[in-house]
């Protein structure tokens, strides 16, 4: 038991260590970095990408990929806007609708992958374009504002924790991110969805021949990823207090990067939720720190690229040794 925990934990310790090194380096380099408000800012900017990355982790562990999460997130935000602003539905219903929109897109991608046997890269590329187009069509290519429903903004921007514990003003978006992470962790390690997810990622045929309906479970997993994506969409809409159909493209790559930084293997069968959380944090700490050090935005992206190479290389070295 200890053995396996060790090997799984090591991967996270490595990612965690990089995170700590980054935090220390930036704190030393700039007095502005290690401030409560800046740290909250980092967490806040992690929340949406983080939830997206959490969802992507499931599909990536199957050995697949979901390129549609960026634009599906946008579509979910737009649909939330449609439900709440255009149709005047109550806020909770709108939220649920947004999440279900994401889940439905995942269901479709999953069906294309599992039943029509379209490679995940292609199926989700198509879904990416479909969602992008639909978001523009439905919104009339204009942002939808949530000015009528004031409580909607509170979902991301309010602070339940702050109202419970004075001074502890952690925005809800961050809270939702951590709750989603716990949920993801439970699904991956304590339910059969998670177990089949890992099993079919490491050897799909052997899993099928064990009597597991792999087609069905793949659809379940893509739908799950979609639901997390929908949640990210709601969070983003609430944070901006508007659903902007032009945002979202490219987020899928950042989500994938966070997952990979967290030690999940793109060839499937290996990955942890904890790793993804750390991966997402590394990404935003890096961007935030570089910005505080006044590194131009173009260069921030370049640095992130190099960091991804380094992190994955370090992980491979470790694995080769083991």
């Amino acid at each position, binding site marked *: *038991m200890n*053995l*396996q925990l060790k090997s799984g934990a090591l991967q996270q310790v490595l990612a965690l260590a990089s995170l700590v090194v980054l935090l220390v380096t930036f704190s030393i380099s700039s007095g502005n970095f290690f401030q409560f408000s800046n740290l909250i800012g980092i967490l806040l900017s992690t929340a949406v990408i983080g939830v997206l990355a959490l969802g992507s982790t499931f599909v990536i562990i199957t050995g697949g990929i979901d390129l549609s999460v960026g634009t599906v997130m946008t579509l979910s935000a737009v649909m939330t806007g449609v439900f709440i602003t255009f149709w005047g539905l109550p806020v909770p219903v709108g939220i649920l609708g947004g999440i279900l929109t994401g889940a439905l897109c995942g269901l479709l991608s999953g069906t294309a992958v599992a039943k029509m046997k379209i490679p995940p890269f292609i199926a989700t590329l198509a879904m990416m374009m479909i969602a992008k187009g639909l978001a523009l069509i439905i919104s009339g290519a204009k942002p939808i504002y949530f000015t009528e429903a004031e409580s909607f903004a509170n979902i991301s921007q309010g602070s339940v924790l702050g109202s419970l514990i004075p001074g502890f003003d952690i925005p809800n978006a961050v809270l939702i991110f951590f709750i989603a992470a716990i949920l993801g962790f439970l699904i991956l390690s304590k339910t059969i969805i998670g177990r089949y997810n*890992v*099993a079919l990622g*490491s050897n799909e045929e*052997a899993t099928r*021949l064990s*009597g597991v309906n792999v087609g*069905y479970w793949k659809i379940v997993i893509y739908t799950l990823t979609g639901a997390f994506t929908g949640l990210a969409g709601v969070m983003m809409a609430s944070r901006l207090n508007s659903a902007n159909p032009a945002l979202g493209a490219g987020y899928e790559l950042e989500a994938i990067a966070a997952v990979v930084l967290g030690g999940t293997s793109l060839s499937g069968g290996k990955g942890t939720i904890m790793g993804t959380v750390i991966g997402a944090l590394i990404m935003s700490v890096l961007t935030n720190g570089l910005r505080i050090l006044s590194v131009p935005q173009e260069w921030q992206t370049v640095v992130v690229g190099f960091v991804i190479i380094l992190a994955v290389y370090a992980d491979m070295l470790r694995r080769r040794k083991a």
Partner: protein
Amino acid sequence: MSEILVHMEGITKKFPGVMALNGCRFELRKGEVHALMGENGAGKSTMMKILTGVYQKDEGSITYKGRTVEINHPKAAQDAGISMIHQELNLAPDLTVAQNIYIGREPRRKLGLFLDEKALNRQVEALFERMGLVMDPSALVADLTVARQQMVEIAKALSYNADVLVMDEPTAALSEAEIEDLFRIIRQLRAEGVGIVYISHRMDEIKRITDRITVMRDGQYIATVPTAEVSTQDIISMMVGRQIYDTSKPEGVSRDRETVLEVQGVSRGRVLSDVSFTLKKGEILGVAGLVGAGRTELARVIFGADRPDAGEIRVHGQPVRMKGPHDAVRHGIGYLSEDRKRFGCIVDLDVKSNVAIASYRRFLKPAGWMDTGRIRQEAERIVDRLRVKTPHVDQEVKFLSGGNQQKVVIGKWLTRDCDILIFDEPTRGIDVGAKSEIYKLLNELAAQGKSIIMISSELPEILRMSHRIIVMCEGRITGELGHEEATQENIMQLATAAM
């Protein structure tokens, strides 16, 4: 006495939580076939992987051709003339036979930029001719049967013109005819002065082809003896260190038992034509035939892994149409694949997940969470019962020895508790002690009223275990024999009947 090629002394190798080798020794002479024997997990493969540079030893020394050597890398071993056929196949399925054999050493055209496919295929044809093997060098490996893939591995090892050749269970997937081919090649190499290490659990092969035997137990050296001077019983007791009892023959089943499975007129492509048979409750039905006779295909069709073109399958009298293996499992059918690495176990998962993978619904708590405590208990029970050698049930299956992986896959189906079990080469790679335990287990299952279809290429096993035997040849059933009337001869006759 001929020259000593390899001498390994005091070899120790630790893996996390496992002492795989503990001061082990081994010696190989020029021009001998030397058997390495021991139970599953005794350390045979590990010992040879150290010789061929796959693993690094922790302690000990290796002398090769009179000089002390450090072999740090498989390439170093190959360059020195030591080559190995691994227990697990290591071929790239999407490359051709020839490309696989010369991978990393491809012949180039003049400038060295372009590959010379023609020269490559010519070289491979020459190699096949020397081996007396008929195979198309440009066939894709993915399209070959396991047996043919194994022959490709053997050809690849031979292509290095090695002085030392290690064969780790080379015949596990081969048919009788191919085993004969292999033995002919081995004799030829021995005459040329090659030293051959031969790892196998099949006593008859050891007796036939090897000159000396080294026995290992629990990572330690036990003895080296000339093959001609020891009895099978001696070897077994050296290997096991305890007495193993030979199980009885199966008790007869009366004819009026209820029928649990009926296969009627099943055909599929060119591999199965018009196959019909029945299986009764509590019966062990042996399916004999040469490799390629369609036995595995039949099993896959019954299990829903492949769809039949025609015919009907009835379970407990009800016609069933299976969309996939999950439907078969729901009807109480389990299937143990002959290809453990590809279709049997999920090597990246631990022992307990592999044991539970077919039965998770049994291990759910009311709220839908997995009951890890019960899964662990069940896995520990299986490990005990099948004597799986593993430090704990959280060990990833890829760290188990080949035979122990096979036991884990058997454990998966025991856990599932099926009414109908199809075992395709269940004792492949399993040591003698464990074999008789599996036979005992099959008898127990049958006595409990489970029905078993046992596919096996080992005739003694089929003869000993089956209540009834059906023989297949080229996709057809060529005959059915009762337990009393079956002999090796009449089975072989039926197995070649359609040819």
